[in-house]
């Protein structure tokens, strides 16, 4: 009921290659949800199915309460899509692009003009409003593309890799725009291959791997899954390392004379580790507590050997 985007078991193949193998998604109303995955993970395919541009081979999806296959028109009335390639008309000016989109969204001529002017202002394109889009930089195009998705306020906004190929400054601009939108209560489903982007923008993140969700949660939940507080024990010599490795369930690193013991980061866990080594008479030089980065989470979830559903 509270989910604006709901997908169950979505499957899709292209020429015998399975791209989605049972994708499940549930995005709550008003949240920013990131679909995170490497190139070829199926992010764009998932978005195209949810935006009614592609039919799934199997599974069902509902967006804004409507089935994407049975009632595409109702879905389209509720969504906006900003695809991976800026889908703007290069021969038209920025203003004309927005006015055209507004007309296609059933605004009258006057309202379309006003809306276009508002959006140009808001997306920092007012100076370039009457130049042809062909002369726009990549960042300007992306901002225009995003503005074109907002001529009417959509219930759900799909953003497919909104910042891929942008320089850091333009990326920050797009991020600010998305954060603004999120504050205004639009549900946003964005795909990205950048962890930093997911971490910064999204309320919840799903890691897409091998055509299905490998893990899902807030950024900090995902980090917890990979061990919230790994204790790194540094030992004086090889014998101590072997002794510690025999006593504890950890990952030895002989080169650094270090044993990595996954834990929950609590003082109690650290004390237990040290007490145990003390009883066994294993000397410890020093220790470090490390929280895994999202990169480590991502690598551990999508690394070789890890496949399929969580």
């Amino acid at each position, binding site marked *: 009921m509270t989910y604006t985007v709901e997908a169950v078991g979505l499957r899709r193949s292209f020429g015998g290659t399975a791209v989605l193998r049972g994708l499940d998604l549930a995005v709550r109303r008003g949240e920013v949800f990131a679909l995170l995955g490497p190139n070829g993970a199926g992010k764009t395919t998932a978005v*195209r199915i949810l*935006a*009614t*541009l*592609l*039919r799934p081979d199997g599974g069902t999806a509902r967006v804004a309460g409507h089935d994407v296959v049975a009632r595409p*028109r*109702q879905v*389209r*009335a509720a*969504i*906006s*899509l900003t*695809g*991976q*390639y*800026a*889908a*703007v*008309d*290069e*021969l*038209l000016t920025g203003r*004309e692009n927005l006015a*055209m*989109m507004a*007309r*296609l*969204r059933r605004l009258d001529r006057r309202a379309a003009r006003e809306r276009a002017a508002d959006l140009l202002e808001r997306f920092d394109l007012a100076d370039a409003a009457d130049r*042809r889009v062909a002369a726009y930089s990549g960042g300007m195009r992306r901002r225009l593309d995003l503005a*074109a998705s907002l001529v009417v306020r959509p219930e759900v906004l799909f953003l497919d890799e909104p910042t891929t190929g942008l320089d850091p400054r333009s990326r920050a601009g797009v991020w600010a725009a998305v954060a603004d939108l999120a504050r205004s209560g639009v549900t946003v489903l964005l795909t990205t291959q950048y962890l930093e982007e997911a971490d910064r923008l999204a309320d919840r993140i799903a890691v897409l791997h091998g055509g299905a969700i490998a893990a899902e949660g807030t950024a900090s939940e995902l980090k917890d899954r990979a061990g919230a507080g790994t204790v790194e024990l540094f030992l004086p010599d090889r014998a101590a390392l072997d002794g510690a490795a025999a006593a504890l369930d950890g990952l030895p690193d002989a080169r650094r004379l270090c044993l990595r013991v996954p834990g929950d980061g609590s003082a109690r866990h650290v004390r237990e580790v040290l007490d145990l080594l003390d009883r066994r008479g294993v000397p410890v030089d020093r220790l470090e507590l490390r929280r895994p980065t999202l990169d480590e989470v991502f690598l551990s979830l999508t690394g070789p050997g890890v496949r399929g559903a969580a």
Partner: protein
Amino acid sequence: MLRDSLTFIGRGLRHSARSVDALLVAVILPVVILLLFVFVFGGAIAVGVQYVDYVVPGIILLCAGYGAAGTAVGVNADMTKGVIDRFRSLPIAGSSVLVGHVAASVARNVVSTSLVLGVALLIGFRPTGGPLAWLAAVGVLLLFMGGVSWLAACFGLLARTPEAAGAFSFVVMFLPYLSSAFVPTDTMPAALRGLAEHQPVTPVIETLRGLMMSGPVGGSGVAAVLWCTSFTVVGVAGTAVLFRRRTTP
């Protein structure tokens, strides 16, 4: 549907107005061919009347066909450059994009054809048809432009790249050479004559010539209208099928 089509026609007209180079080519190419045939080859071609009066209807048709064929490139660019995804994710009929292309193509070609006609008048084309005949000629031309534009839209949907889609212009531009546009078909070898007399461009040219020069139109008129109508019917049906196939894989 109608409102969206109008929006897309507006888009197409803006495109045309901004592709001045394309419009120039669509005017200059037929004009160069016209000058070439009238002043270089024309003196050696005996057709019973002033050669300029004979050849201009063919040149006008060549201009209209070449320009209309350009629709293929515009349609293909929309399909390959991603903008179609945005239109398709809107609650509108996707086909209104195509209606916009075709209507804008006809408007564009009215302009280029008028310019070519103007040049023809400057170099001595003296049509004798009355106002009604001219009206009929304009009607046939519009029908031809519409039909070729729809076929071009089909080709644009079939082609993989805008460059490939551009090839349609050359097919259409070549057809008048194998017709009665430049020389009467009875001077051609029998096999070629059969082809020239039964390809669609010949009856259209004969009709235009008859109407503009107040000559007989006869069966050509019916054939011309039938050909142009079939282009439109086949083009519209073809684009409907191809558009669906290309956009719902």
